[in-house]
């Protein structure tokens, strides 16, 4: 277990800044294991950037890297995101 791991909740502000909606309740489907989980339930690891991993199989779902002016978001492991309108 990585003791620095946190939940998707911890990056709620960053996600909301990007998507302009509350994203921790959005459901993401993992491309690897097929699990559909709330983004708030993902496992978040912070290093040079942020990696959000599937709570079931650890697949990297979303990556985010920021500097002061820009944000790069990658979706290496999310097939679909279900968002409430």
């Amino acid at each position: 277990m990585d003791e620095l791991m946190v939940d998707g909740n911890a990056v709620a502000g960053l996600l909301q800044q990007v998507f302009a909606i509350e994203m921790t309740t959005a459901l993401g489907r993992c491309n690897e294991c097929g699990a559909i989980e709330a983004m708030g339930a993902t496992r978040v690891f912070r290093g040079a950037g942020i990696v959000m991993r599937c709570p079931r199989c650890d697949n990297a779902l979303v990556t985010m890297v920021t500097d002061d002016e820009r944000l790069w978001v990658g979706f290496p492991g999310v097939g679909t995101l279900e968002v409430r309108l």
Partner: protein
Amino acid sequence: MAGTAVLGRLKWEVADVVEIVPETPRVKRIVFEVPGWAGHRAGQHVDIRLTAEDGYRAERSYSIASAPDGTRIEIAVERLDDGEVSPYLTDELRPGDQIELRGPVGGYFVWEPTEGGPLLLVAGGSGIAPLMAMIRLRAAARSDVETRLLCSSRSWAEIVYRRELDQLSGDGLTVAHTLTRTQPRGWTGYTRRVDREMLAEVAQAPDESPLVYVCGPTPFVEAVATALVDLGHEARLIKTERFGATGA
């Protein structure tokens, strides 16, 4: 307000520090007045941003410990000796100072009185903060949802919100404490880390399907969530909030 609405881009706002109160030797309660604050839900957090003179910035997310109450919000900050942000908040900040924050954020680790219960809340150290928002909201809304709180602290003096929890218990709220390092003389409560046996004694039976909220350091949350699933609680009813490794 609800998590369903389109909220627009989050903006950093300037908040005034209204009150700073030592809660335990390592935790302070900080109350902010946030002009234009549109309210929040119990369990949501705020991001706080500090900017150094050379432009270096550090951001941290803190759970809101207060129930919705106009434009005031309260957080509980534990001082981490090697922290970038918490020593500033606990040691340097003074009432009258201003600070940048944005929020409320989150919608997953949230409880509304309309969701009902029963509720099982498990806190490691200052992980009580978002659960306190739920307990305070429950009281303010005069909810009679059957609620059990299990608090793990190092010692009696380090129980965060101990006095207020004493006052609020009763009326369907029961509070159990475990003191993992030192105990006062005559202590008859638990003296070990939260484990499966303790949860079996304190928690509702799995067939009562309590809504479970667990908040604390990552190893604590891992251990509690795993034990609850072992006991037969459904994983989908267990919501967790891990705040990294800070030892409770």
